C-alpha cells in the first residue's frame, strides 16, 4: 500500500476535497427522500409501490458518481492545469505514481463514502417502513457502483493527465468514457434496424449495455428515441461476467491514467493537448453523429440531397468547431480538415457492417430437420408473470412446436413480410450444436400451442401449481398494504386446498379470465410484485368464488371502508359528467367488465343522449345496494382524471393509459342479470364506438 499511496499527500488532497465531498454527499442523501416519498405516498394512497428495481436504485448513484467524479477529480488534479500549482506539486519529493494513486484514492473514497451512506440509508428506510427490498439485487447494484466509481475517476484522471486545460479535459473524458460505447451501441442500433430479428444486445457482449455500466445511461436515450428497438434494453446489474468486465475496464482505465500521469510533461499545464491522437478522436466524435444520421437515412433508402448536404456541412462545422475552441488557431483547424475523412470512413463502415451481419445471419438455416429443441428467452430482469419467469428455462422438443418455430423463422426472415415489434425471443438448438437466438414473429395461435406444450412439461407444471415464490409485495387500489397482505395470506391458504384444475384456472390469470360461470364474480385482483434472486416479476391474484373465504373477507373490508358513500360517489360522477366537467372516467366491474375510458368535456348535449349505454350502466350502479356478502356482490371501481385538453366533442378514448387522479372501489349487490345486461350494454357501446371511429376516419 505504501508503495502506491503517500499518506501525507493523500490526507492533504482528502482535506482539500472535504467541503465539496460533504456538500455533494449531502445532496445525494436528499435524493434518498425522493423514492421513499414516492413509495410512502403510494402506500398511503393504497397504490402499489414497486419493489425498487435495479435501475431506480442505481439512477441517483450513477448521476452522483458522474457529477461527483467529475467535480472531485477535476478538483484534485486542478493543479495540473496551472504553471504555479504544477510546479509546486511536481517539485514535492513524491513519486508521480504515488501522487496519482493518492489523489485517486482521495476522490474515490469521498464518492464511496457518499454512495455507501446513501445505500445504507436507503436500505434502512425501506426496512423501517416495512417495504419490500431485494437486498441481493441491491448488493449487486452497490458493487456495480463501486466499480463505476473506479471507472469514472479513472477516465477523468486519464483525461486530466492527457491535457492541460479544463475544456479539453472534459471532452477527453467524454470521448474516453462514452464514445467507444456509443459507437458500439449505434452500430447495434443500425444492425437492429437492418435485421430486426437479431437480438443484437445478446449477439456480442460489447453490444450489451450491462457491460461497462457507466457508459450506458444514454442507452435509455436511444431506447427512448426508437422504443422497443433493443427489446427491454434494460441494463443488468446482476451479471457476474458483466461486473468482471466493468471491473477490468475500470482497472485498465485507472492504470492507463497512472501511466499517462507518470509520463505527462509538467510543462503541459495550461496547454490544451499534446496528444494529437486524442485531439483527433475528440474532433471525430464531434463530427460523426450527424454523418451517422445520414447513414441511417441511406440504410433506409431514404435519400434527400438537401438533408445530405446539410448534415455533412453541419458535421464538418462541428468537427472544425472543436479545433477552433480548443486551440484557438485557424491554421490548425485548416490543417486538420483532411482528417474529416476519418469521420466519413467510420460512417461508411456503419453503412456496410449491418448489411453484412444481416446477410450472414440470414444465411443460417433453421429447418424442422435441423432444430433439436428450443426455449423461450426472457428479455430483461423483470417478467410479466411468475409463470413467464419460470417458462423461460423450459426446453421444448415437441415436433409440432419445432415446426411452428421453423415456419416462424422462415416467415420472419422473409423480406416480403413487414415486421412490427420485436417478436418473441427464442433460443433455437440445432443439430450441429450451434444455438441461435432470434426474435420470431409468432401468431397468437402459435404462441398458444407453444404455451400449451410448455405447460405439459413437468418442470413447468410444478411451477404452475405453486403459489408464486420469492420476496413479495401485495398491492391493491382499494386496500392498504396490510389489508392486501391479509387477503393474500387468506388466498394462499385456500389456494393450497384447491385441486390442480382449479389452481390451473386461477393460475391462468395473466392471460385470460375465461372461467365461464365465474365471469362476473371475479371480484378483484391483487397485484403481486416479487423477486426470486435478482429477477423481479409481477403477478396477480384473482379473487373469485373459488376462494370463498378470501372473497368474503375482501367484500367485508370493502363494505366497511367505502359502501356508506357508494351512492354519493356514483351520483357525483353522473353529476360531474352532466355538468360537463373535463374528466376522463373509467369504470370497471369485477375484474372482467371494463368500460372504456370516456372523455366528457364541453358536451353540447346531455350524457344520456351522447352516450346512452354509459348512462344506463351508471343508472344500474346507482340503484345497486351496497353489500358485505361476497356471493351476491361485485366490485365496482371508478377512476377519474381531470384533464385540461380541449376536444370539440364527447369522445371515447378506450386505450388511453393514464393513471387516475382518484380511484374509488365499491362492493355493490349486482345480480347475474344486471351483470349480463351491463355486458350487453358494453357490446352495444363498442359497436357504436367503432362506427364513430369509422365516421371520423372516412
Amino acid at each position, binding site marked *: 500500500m505504501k508503495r502506491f499511496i*503517500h*499518506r*501525507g*499527500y493523500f*490526507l*492533504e488532497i482528502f482535506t*482539500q476535497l472535504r467541503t465539496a465531498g460533504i456538500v455533494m454527499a449531502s445532496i445525494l442523501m436528499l435524493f434518498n427522500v425522493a423514492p421513499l416519498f414516492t413509495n410512502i405516498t403510494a402506500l398511503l394512497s393504497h397504490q402499489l409501490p414497486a419493489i425498487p428495481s435495479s435501475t431506480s436504485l442505481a439512477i441517483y448513484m450513477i448521476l452522483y458518481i458522474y457529477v461527483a467524479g467529475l467535480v472531485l477529480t477535476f478538483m484534485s488534479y486542478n493543479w495540473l492545469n496551472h*504553471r*504555479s*500549482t*504544477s*510546479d*509546486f506539486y*511536481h*517539485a*514535492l*519529493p*513524491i*513519486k*508521480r505514481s*504515488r501522487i496519482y494513486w493518492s489523489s485517486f484514492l482521495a476522490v474515490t473514497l469521498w464518492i464511496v463514502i457518499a454512495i455507501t451512506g446513501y445505500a445504507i440509508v436507503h436500505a434502512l428506510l425501506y426496512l423501517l417502513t416495512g417495504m419490500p427490498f431485494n437486498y441481493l439485487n441491491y448488493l449487486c447494484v452497490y458493487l456495480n457502483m463501486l466499480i463505476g466509481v473506479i471507472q469514472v475517476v479513472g477516465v477523468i484522471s486519464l483525461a486530466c493527465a492527457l491535457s492541460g486545460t479544463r475544456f479539453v479535459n472534459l471532452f477527453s473524458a467524454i470521448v474516453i468514457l462514452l464514445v467507444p460505447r456509443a459507437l458500439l451501441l449505434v452500430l447495434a442500433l443500425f444492425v437492429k434496424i437492418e435485421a430486426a430479428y437479431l437480438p443484437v444486445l445478446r449477439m456480442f457482449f460489447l453490444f450489451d449495455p450491462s457491460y461497462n455500466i457507466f457508459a450506458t445511461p444514454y442507452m435509455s436515450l436511444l431506447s427512448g428515441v426508437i422504443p422497443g428497438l433493443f427489446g427491454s434494453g434494460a441494463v443488468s446489474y446482476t451479471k457476474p461476467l458483466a461486473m468482471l468486465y466493468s471491473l477490468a475496464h475500470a482497472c485498465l482505465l485507472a492504470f492507463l491514467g497512472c501511466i499517462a500521469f*507518470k509520463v505527462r*510533461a*509538467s*510543462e503541459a499545464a495550461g496547454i490544451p493537448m499534446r496528444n494529437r491522437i486524442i485531439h483527433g478522436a475528440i474532433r471525430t466524435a464531434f463530427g460523426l453523429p450527424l454523418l451517422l444520421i445520414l447513414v441511417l437515412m441511406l440504410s433506409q433508402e431514404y435519400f434527400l440531397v438537401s438533408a445530405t448536404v446539410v448534415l455533412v456541412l453541419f458535421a464538418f462545422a462541428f468537427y472544425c468547431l472543436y479545433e477552433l475552441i480548443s486551440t484557438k488557431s485557424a491554421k490548425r483547424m485548416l490543417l486538420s480538415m483532411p482528417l474529416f475523412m476519418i469521420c466519413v470512413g467510420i460512417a461508411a463502415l456503419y453503412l456496410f457492417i449491418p448489411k453484412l451481419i444481416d446477410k450472414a445471419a440470414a444465411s443460417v438455416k433453421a429447418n424442422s430437420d435441423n432444430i433439436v429443441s428450443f426455449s423461450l428467452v426472457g428479455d430483461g430482469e423483470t417478467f410479466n408473470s411468475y409463470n413467464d419467469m419460470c417458462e423461460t428455462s423450459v426446453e421444448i422438443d415437441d415436433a409440432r412446436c419445432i415446426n411452428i418455430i421453423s415456419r416462424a423463422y422462415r416467415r420472419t426472415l422473409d423480406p416480403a413480410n413487414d415486421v412490427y415489434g420485436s417478436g418473441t425471443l427464442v433460443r433455437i438448438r440445432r443439430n450441429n450444436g450451434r444455438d441461435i437466438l432470434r426474435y420470431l414473429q409468432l401468431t397468437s395461435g402459435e404462441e398458444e400451442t407453444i404455451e400449451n406444450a410448455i405447460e405439459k412439461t413437468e418442470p413447468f407444471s410444478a411451477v404452475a401449481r405453486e403459489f408464486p415464490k420469492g420476496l413479495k409485495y401485495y398491492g391493491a387500489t382499494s386496500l392498504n398494504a396490510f389489508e392486501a397482505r391479509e387477503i393474500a395470506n387468506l388466498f394462499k391458504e385456500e389456494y393450497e386446498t384447491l385441486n390442480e384444475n382449479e389452481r390451473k384456472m386461477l393460475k391462468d390469470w395473466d392471460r385470460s379470465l375465461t372461467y365461464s360461470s365465474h365471469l362476473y364474480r371475479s371480484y378483484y385482483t391483487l397485484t403481486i410484485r416479487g423477486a426470486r434472486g435478482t429477477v423481479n416479476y409481477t403477478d396477480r391474484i384473482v379473487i373469485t368464488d373459488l376462494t370463498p373465504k378470501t372473497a368474503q373477507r375482501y367484500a367485508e373490508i370493502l363494505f366497511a371502508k367505502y359502501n356508506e358513500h357508494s351512492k354519493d360517489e356514483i351520483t357525483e360522477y353522473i353529476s360531474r359528467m352532466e355538468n360537463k366537467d373535463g374528466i376522463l372516467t373509467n369504470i370497471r366491474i369485477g375484474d372482467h367488465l371494463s368500460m372504456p375510458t370516456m372523455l366528457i368535456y364541453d358536451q353540447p348535449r346531455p350524457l344520456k343522449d351522447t352516450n346512452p349505454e354509459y348512462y344506463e350502466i351508471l343508472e344500474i350502479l346507482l340503484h345497486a345496494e351496497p353489500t358485505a356478502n361476497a356471493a351476491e356482490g361485485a366490485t365496482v371501481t371508478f377512476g377519474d382524471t381531470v384533464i385540461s385538453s380541449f376536444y370539440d366533442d364527447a369522445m371515447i378514448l378506450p386505450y388511453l393509459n393514464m393513471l387516475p387522479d382518484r380511484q374509488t372501489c365499491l362492493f355493490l349487490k349486482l345480480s347475474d342479470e344486471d351483470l349480463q345486461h351491463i355486458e350487453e350494454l358494453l357490446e352495444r357501446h363498442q359497436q357504436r364506438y367503432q362506427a364513430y371511429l369509422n365516421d371520423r376516419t372516412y
Partner: protein
Amino acid sequence: MITASNLTKRFGDFYALNRLNCAIPEGCIYGLVGSNGAGKSTLLRLISGIYRPDGGSITVDGQKIFDEPDVKSRLVFVPDELYFLPRANMKRMANLYANVYPRFSFEKFEQLTRLFNLNPNQNIATFSKGMKRQAATILALSCSADYILFDETFDGLDPVMRNLVKTLLYDDVLDRKATAVITSHSLRELEDTCDQLALLHKGGIIFESDIGNLKTSLFKVQVAFSEEYDKTKFAGITILSYSKHGSVASLIVRGDRDETTAKINAMQPVLFEILPLSLEEVFVFEMDALGYEFTEVLKEEVN
C-alpha cells in the same frame, strides 16, 4: 554536486536549454543570471525535478532527479510564482512539507516565523506579496534540504528582509554545507550574495566563474609613461581592453595582480594605479572577450 551534461529542454520548437553544461559544487551560493527567456527558470525546474530533460542529463551526486523522491527530498524549490494550498496557513503548509521532506524542522520553522514576525496561523492568502515570499523562504529553509533553489528570490522583499534572507542563506551554507542556487536578472543583487556566478544566454551557460576570482583576476590599470608608447609596450600582460587618452592609458587586465604590478613597475611608469572593477564591468569585459555584446545578453536587465 549538481551536474548538468548536455542538458536540453525544448518547448515545441523552442529550445529553452540547449546542450547546457554546468557543475554546481556543494556548500556554495550559485547565481544564475540572464535575460528573460535565457533559461534560468527552466534550469531550476530541471534541477528540482519538475521537468524531465529532453536530452542530456541532470544529476545530484550522480543520481538522476526526475521522479526520484529520495533525490528530490534533498532539494527544495522556491519558484518565482508562489503557490500555497487553498485557504492554507503556514502551519498547514509546514505539515505538508513535514510529511514529504524527512528533515523538515518545526523548531527552525517556529524560530524563523518569529524572526520574520509572521503569524503561522494566519491564512497566507491575506499576506502581502513580500510576506508570501518570506513565508515561502521560511518553509524552504525549514526543510533543511541540501540544495535550496530560489527563482527570483528577492522580488518583493524590502531591503531589510532581503538582507535577512541573505544572512539566513549564508548561515545555512556555512552551518550545513547546503548549496543555494539563486536566479536573478540583476547582477548587482547577486554580486554580494553568490560565490559563483553563471551567465545564461539562449539556453546555454556562456560564462561561469567564482566571483572572488572574477573580481581579483580582472582589474583596471591606469598607467602613464614619460616617453611615447602604445599597446605593444605591454607584451606579456593579458589585456582585454586598451584605451589611451593623452599620455594615460587605461587597461583591463586579466591575471595575477602582483605579477602585473611587478611587470609594470619594471617599466618605470610616471603614473600607475590599479582600480577594482564592479561585477557588471567584469561581465562586460569578459563577454566582450568571448565575442558577446554584453548589453545584448543582459539588455536592460542589468541595473
